[in-house]
């Protein structure tokens, strides 16, 4: 028993030590800590937007707008068809229902032909509808963008939007941005921005993504030089001090066209993302936002993506060496490469592209992942619309063997090799690699990109809050004061009522709060104003467990039991009631966590953490204190309760 108590005391002291250490990064500036310490304890308590100020927007996809656009595209397509067929008539897009298209022909006998054409060309993306009853009804064909198609696009658009928004924001170096999906909404939280920057960020987020197809201009084919520009850049950067400083490395890309056996060689640069301290002017240039409350005159920390590193380097090359300046027909493109080997960090690589946009998102009708039974690998199928299919046929015809970059939002998503001319209006892209899981994910990503690009659906704010840091600070001060005063009162009640045992419970309560904060820091959870309310609430509720035990001990003492026996009985019998009581509050916390958002979620998290800590500190920790107070070692015949 004695040994056990010693061990338990040891563990408690260790736990307290660990908790204090965990909290250090939250209260001490990062650069004041030794590096070994930073490695061990790095996570810190995050302050919610309501405390530190910032932007919180809930977005949803404006599908109506996208469907409306699709209808306009169908209208354009139908007009072209009528002209081709030599039929007279007009096409309109009535405002209701959303996505409606009406083809009104001059000659009623053409109706059947148009109907079958529509059914053939747009089978999956439209649904026929009844024409409005008027004079034109007999010579009209009416349909609308189908809701199944729209819903399918919506899912892809949502996933893609989260990724795009995240990337757009990361490029801006905002510290700790949070972009998460909740149902069919996207919640964006950006701490600590000023008015002007909020405007810029919102603009960035609400922009629709743009899909483009461009051809890669490689350096060599079968050993013959085609365009040695990138080879020169490669040669220059290989031994350039600036490139070395920026951690830019060079590499060679090589692929074979299966049918002809031609070997293509391309040269490129690569760089990784990093966090860097930049001077303000430099930071402004790459669009890194200033999120620091107190402006450091020397500069600020920014996330610099590999793409920004490469972009800055390559664009500066022209000035340093005229031979290496980009001509008007070419442009650089950048791709984030995630190597299959998880040990290798993702990096950005450059592409040397023809500037001309060969095809854009509006050429794509739809896209799917499908499993190719022959190769037993997932592939991405792209369906083009009439115009797009024709254009794609021409493009692939003249570029067999080369790479085609698929670019969403100025970022190359993938650059597959064109194996044959594709004239059928649909094309399939096979995935590289051997890991089926990863291939499936990549295929789905590409489909998301293509679908999003084919039907750009803007994000529309459902709710929005901007919090200035001043009000938050005032609220925190008041909440802190309430916390302190409330705690003092609880301490008084406990100590006056339970004497020494009351003191024990107060110490346990203090440890309870310490553990709560430590857990908060360990998980990097967010402390919000309602979270502080939950902390205050926990102070009020945590002593309940002590009260239950103490009242029980008193009852046992009244019945004439010894101190030791009473304490044992109090802890033993009290536990069930404590557990039940805390768990029911926990249920409320859990449901709140599931349904709540933003600050309310912070409340729920804190409430649940509070329950876990209360159970621990009010039973295990208090019990340990009692072992020391009335334990065997000291034959305590009395108790101050």
């Amino acid at each position: 028993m004695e040994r056990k108590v010693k061990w338990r005391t040891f563990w408690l002291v260790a736990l307290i030590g660990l908790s204090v250490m965990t909290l250090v990064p939250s209260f001490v500036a990062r650069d004041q800590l030794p590096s070994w310490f930073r490695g061990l304890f790095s996570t810190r308590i995050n302050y919610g937007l309501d405390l530190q100020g910032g932007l919180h927007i809930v977005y949803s996809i404006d599908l109506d707008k996208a469907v409306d656009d699709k209808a306009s595209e169908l209208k354009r397509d139908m007009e072209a068809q009528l002209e081709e067929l030599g039929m007279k008539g007009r096409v309109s897009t009535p405002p209701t229902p959303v996505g409606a298209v009406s083809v009104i022909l001059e000659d009623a006998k053409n109706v059947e032909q148009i109907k079958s054409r529509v059914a053939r060309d747009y089978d999956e993306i439209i649904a026929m509808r009844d024409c409005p009853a008027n004079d034109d009804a007999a010579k009209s064909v009416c349909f609308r963008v189908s809701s199944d198609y729209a819903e399918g696009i919506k899912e892809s658009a949502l996933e893609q939007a989260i990724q795009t928004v995240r990337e757009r924001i990361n490029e801006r170096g905002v510290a700790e941005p949070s972009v998460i999906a909740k149902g069919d909404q996207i919640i964006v939280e950006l701490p600590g921005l000023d008015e002007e920057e909020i405007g810029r960020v919102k603009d960035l987020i609400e922009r629709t993504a743009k899909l483009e197809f461009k051809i890669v201009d490689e350096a060599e084919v079968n050993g013959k030089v085609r365009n040695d520009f990138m080879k020169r850049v490669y040669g220059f950067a290989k031994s350039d001090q600036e490139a070395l400083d920026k951690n830019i490395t060079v590499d060679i890309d090589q692929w074979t066209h299966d049918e002809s056996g031609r070997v293509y060689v391309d040269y490129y640069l690569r760089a990784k993302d990093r966090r860097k301290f930049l001077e303000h002017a430099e930071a402004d240039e790459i669009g890194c936002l200033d999120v620091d409350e107190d402006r450091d005159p020397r500069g600020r920390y920014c996330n610099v993506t590999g793409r920004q590193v490469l972009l800055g380097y390559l664009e500066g090359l022209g000035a340093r060496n005229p031979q290496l300046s980009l001509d008007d027909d070419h442009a650089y493109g950048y791709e984030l490469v995630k190597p299959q080997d998880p040990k290798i960090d993702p990096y950005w690589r450059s592409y040397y592209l023809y500037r001309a946009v060969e095809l854009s998102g509006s050429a794509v009708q739809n896209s799917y992942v499908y499993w190719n039974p022959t190769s037993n690998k997932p592939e991405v199928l792209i369906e083009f619309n009439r115009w797009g299919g024709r254009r794609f046929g021409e493009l692939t015809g003249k570029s067999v063997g080369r790479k085609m970059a698929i670019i969403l939002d100025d970022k190359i998503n993938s650059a597959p090799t064109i194996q044959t001319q594709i004239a059928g209006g649909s094309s399939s892209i096979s995935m590289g690699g051997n890991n089926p899981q990863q291939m499936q994910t990549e295929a789905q990503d590409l489909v998301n990109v293509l679908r999003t690009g084919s039907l750009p659906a803007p994000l529309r704010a459902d709710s929005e809050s901007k919090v200035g840091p001043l009000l938050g600070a005032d609220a925190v001060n008041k909440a802190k004061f309430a916390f302190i005063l409330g705690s003092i009162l609880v301490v008084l009640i406990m100590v006056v009522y339970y004497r020494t045992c009351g003191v024990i419970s107060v110490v346990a309560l203090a440890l309870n709060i310490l553990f709560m904060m430590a857990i908060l820091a360990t998980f990097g959870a967010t402390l919000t104003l309602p979270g502080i309310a939950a902390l205050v609430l926990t102070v009020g509720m945590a002593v309940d467990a002590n009260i239950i035990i103490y009242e029980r001990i008193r009852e046992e003492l009244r019945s004439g039991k010894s101190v030791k026996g009473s304490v044992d009985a109090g802890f033993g019998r009290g536990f069930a009631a404590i557990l039940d009581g805390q768990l029911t509050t926990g249920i409320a916390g859990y449901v709140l966590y599931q349904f709540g958002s933003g600050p309310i979620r912070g409340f729920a998290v804190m409430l649940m953490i509070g329950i876990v800590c209360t159970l621990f500190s009010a039973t295990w920790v208090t019990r340990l204190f009692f072992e020391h107070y009335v334990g065997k070692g000291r034959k305590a015949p009395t108790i101050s309760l």
Partner: protein
Amino acid sequence: MSETHKPFRELVKPNGNFEFIEKRKTWAMVSLIVVLGCIAMLFVNKSTRGDYLNWTIDFKGGTELILAFENQDGTPHPVDAAMIRGALNDAGKSGFAVSNFAWKTEGPDGRAIEASGMLVRTPEFGAVKKEEGRAIAADFVSTFADPGILKASWSGDRMFVRAAGAIDWEAARDFFHKHNKTLREWSPENIEEFSVPSEGTEEYNLQFSVAGLDAQYQELIAKALGDDVVVKIQNVYGVGARAGEKLRNDGIKSLFYVMALIMLYLAFRFDVRYAPGAVVALLHDAILVIGVFAVTWQEVSLTTVAALLTVIGYSVNDSVVIFDRIRENVVRLKDKKFGRVINISLNETMARTLLTSITLFVVTLMMNLLGTGLVRNFAFAMNIGVVVGVYSSVFIASPVALAIHNRWFSGPPPKKK
């Protein structure tokens, strides 16, 4: 006895034998009347104040702005709410509410001062209303007939335009200015993107985004106050109508789930006799808290819902500790009737019930007195919840358990003709 301890400091005497159970019908009647009164109050509000409860924009949709007014030197500039109201009225705004809002802040000299602020609430959310947007789009099509507009449509505060030719930003700015909207500047990428047609279709895809509602109000008010006063936006909180609806549904759903889960837990942990008692008690508490919000016309926000759920959790917590004792005593006092056992258990746990409620009441009272906004609203609900929670766990939960026991678990109910 005094060998082991000094006399206890006691809130209630041990071995007290207050009759909770005998008069249970009286208590039930009192509660029923109060509950019905609370529900009636909702309808009274509906007919006299226009709505059941004082919903905030969380549930109704709308925007809440907190503005600060400063002189050029950074000192607070006191502003009259009536004047702001007048300015907004003149600008054709309606349905808004303006009230003073002060908080402590740091003055230009570093000392703590009281900031001069104003809280403006409006039922609007976006900068462009639906019909207004349609009218602007139609006007845009006719204004820019040269180069020709194929389509102009809004999404939020942003107008998407497909045009046959390029439109320059200055022309668009003047157009939007005519409609009292401020066009946001294009970024260099925007300018590049909007100045070239998309290949294939040869159309220009343009986007015009106008300054949000907050900027609109800021400008309106700043104009009314003149150049000497700096109007700063401190906080903006806006909820769209659709989001409001979703939040409301989530709130109702969460109340339902909490009750279902708690009932399940109690049925599993104790037995079916206890669960309904606790649930009746928590319903009683929830209705009473809502009733107080109805009577006092306090704001009901998402935080209030959070407080309500916490009150429910606490109410059950209170009942459960008593149930736990009843369960223990049923085994110990086999010879006694269930009603007696309950009464003994209630008396035994009385000290705990009161003391816990006092500590919780004290901390929430501090938050209520010292906190601001959300915290205060939360604490107010908790204060009421703690009081009614104690009452209901003693006078409602246990008697209901007894009633269920008598009705279904002990043969025919006794002493009934």
